[in-house]
């Protein structure tokens, strides 16, 4: 089977699939290209694993996948965070089956091998049986294997299945500032995962979701039925002289004008990263929470707080696996399952030192926008699903990326800017896609 796939891969002509202004439909529909992506993109890039606050104490663990491979993030007794393959060194069984928990050590359910939380072997029943066999605990293969590289940036833990490549800070480049701004919004300068998670099954290719986040030509169309309806119902039901409830503050901006979204702007960086918004976004006009502002000013001083709040980004994409909304402290994580199946996880964060109202608003946002059972997410998912089906037709092999082609503004240091309605984010992601997929690429 491996041989067959290898033969097929030689036939994949990346220059034919991804051009500067268009992309071939098969990148969304061909299962073999998906397998190739798992190896070349998801097997090379820094993939978001979890947040350090999910493993606060030694013994705590959190499980997820990288390129469909089960991994476990742990906090060892040395206080450090590790990312290990969730696999017993003996016969391969997953060592933990729960999403998260706290243990003294890993104990394999099958033959009782035990490992420390940094992956080193602790004990094997009847270990003497291996004497003189050539297999023994001195062999590093007797440990749980660590993912080749893992590192964290302000608590956000990423890992790479590849030994080589840029370090995390270099790779994050211009979008590290989005993590900074999210953490700086905490009076204590730190974030904490809290409030639970959604796992939303999408019957569509992972790239549709990642592209959509900085596609600013869709909200006023795809979300008209929820956002415009919310405005109309609000107008009818609520007194005009009272402030809008948070729920309507959250839903209404999705149907702002094309000009509004154009002015938000798009910022693109190397490795497929980017964000929309900057000085303003759909999150910029939420009501003030006076107690929060007071605590921020006390922590940072008036000038610095102004600077922190002057940054108001919409979605930041850490291509290919993670996306955050710093201004509302939510995160969506991408987990590809198959060419037409993706799981999107949603997380909320507490700004440490901030009043609870901030967390409550993040949770409300997540309920209203990211839940599989709500009014906004299902219309996005419907669009991806229809793309997945539509691209199966032989109507045309191509998807256009022409909008505002060659009109990008080069801001230096690999930072490119365009107005919101541009296809910049789309083109930039495929530039990275092609670089990763190319032999010897990143």
């Amino acid at each position, binding site marked *: 089977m491996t041989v067959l796939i290898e033969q097929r891969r030689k036939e994949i002509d990346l220059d034919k699939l991804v051009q500067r202004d268009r992309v071939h439909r098969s990148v969304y529909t061909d299962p073999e290209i998906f397998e190739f992506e798992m190896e070349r993109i998801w097997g090379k890039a820094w993939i978001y694993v979890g947040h350090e606050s999910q493993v606060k104490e030694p013994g705590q663990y959190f499980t997820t996948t990288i390129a469909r491979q089960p991994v476990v993030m742990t906090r060892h007794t040395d206080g450090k965070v590790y990312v290990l393959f969730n696999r017993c060194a003996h016969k391969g069984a997953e060592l933990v089956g729960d999403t998260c928990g706290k243990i003294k050590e890993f104990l394999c359910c099958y033959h009782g091998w035990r490992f420390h939380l940094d992956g080193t072997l602790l004990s094997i029943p009847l270990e003497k049986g291996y004497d003189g066999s050539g297999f023994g605990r001195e062999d590093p293969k007797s440990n749980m294997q660590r993912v080749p590289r893992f590192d964290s940036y302000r608590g956000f833990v990423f890992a790479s299945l590849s030994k080589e490549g840029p370090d995390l800070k270099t790779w994050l480049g211009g979008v590290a500032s989005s993590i900074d701004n999210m953490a700086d919004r905490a009076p204590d300068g730190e974030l904490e995962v*809290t*409030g*639970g*998670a*959604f*796992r*939303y*099954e999408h*019957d569509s290719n992972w790239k549709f979701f990642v592209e959509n986040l900085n596609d600013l030509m869709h909200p006023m*169309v*795809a979300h*008209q*039925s*929820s956002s415009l*309806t*919310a405005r*109309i*119902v*609000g107008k009818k*039901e*609520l007194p005009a002289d009272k402030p809008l*409830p948070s*729920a*309507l503050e959250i*839903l209404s901006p999705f149907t702002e004008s094309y000009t509004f979204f154009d002015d938000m702007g798009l910022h693109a960086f190397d490795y497929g990263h980017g964000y929309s918004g900057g000085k303003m976004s759909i999150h910029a006009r939420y009501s003030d929470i006076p107690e929060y502002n007071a605590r921020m000013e006390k922590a940072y001083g008036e000038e610095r707080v102004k600077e922190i709040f002057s940054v108001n980004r919409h979605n930041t994409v850490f291509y290919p696996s993670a996306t955050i909304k710093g201004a509302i402290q939510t995160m969506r994580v991408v987990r590809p399952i198959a060419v037409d199946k993706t*799981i999107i996880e*949603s997380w*909320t964060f507490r700004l440490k030192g901030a009043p*609870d109202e901030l*967390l*409550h608003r993040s*949770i409300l946002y*997540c*309920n*209203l926008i990211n*839940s*599989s*059972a*709500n*009014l906004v*997410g*299902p*219309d996005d*998912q*419907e*669009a991806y699903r*229809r793309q997945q089906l539509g691209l199966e037709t032989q109507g045309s092999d191509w998807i256009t990326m022409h909008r505002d082609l060659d009109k990008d503004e080069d801001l230096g240091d690999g930072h490119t800017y365009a107005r919101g309605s541009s296809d910049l984010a789309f083109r930039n992601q495929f530039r990275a896609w092609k670089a990763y997929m190319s032999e010897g690429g990143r």
Partner: protein
Amino acid sequence: MSSEADMKAFAFHHRVSQFLFHEARLLDEQRWSEWEQLFTEEGTYWAPATPGQPDPINHVSLIYENALLRKVRLARFGNPNAYSLQPFPRSSHMLSNVMIDAHDEKAGTVLVTSRFLMVEYRRDVNNFFAGEYVHDLIEEGGAFKIRQKKASLVDCDGTHPSSNIYF
């Protein structure tokens, strides 16, 4: 099962069950405005996202709606641009194991637990949802009103496909 008290409890259980069946029927028959009327002004609909979730404020929920958000959702049902509702999903709710957990005759409040199985059908796919309902009811003028309907899916913290209608 012959004392007057037993007969009264039996009759009350029947009334409560009929109310729950009626509520489910309104959902399945898409009689939204009648369904909306079953809630008190402050009434909430809550589908938690984790087992034993203590409240809808400090943890995400699949759905947590007050009267205003219910109005938004129901108004959206009639919107021609609600793409994930094309074609409009159909549902069938089955209820059983109806148990009255608390009944305060003086206050008119009833807490009733039941089990449900619901299928949502749309575009050749049946999605199944199962779990527990807790209805927090109050009697007003001889009729029950819902103070809270809590629908706890058995897999509330699991992976879910899109769903648009009420569990």
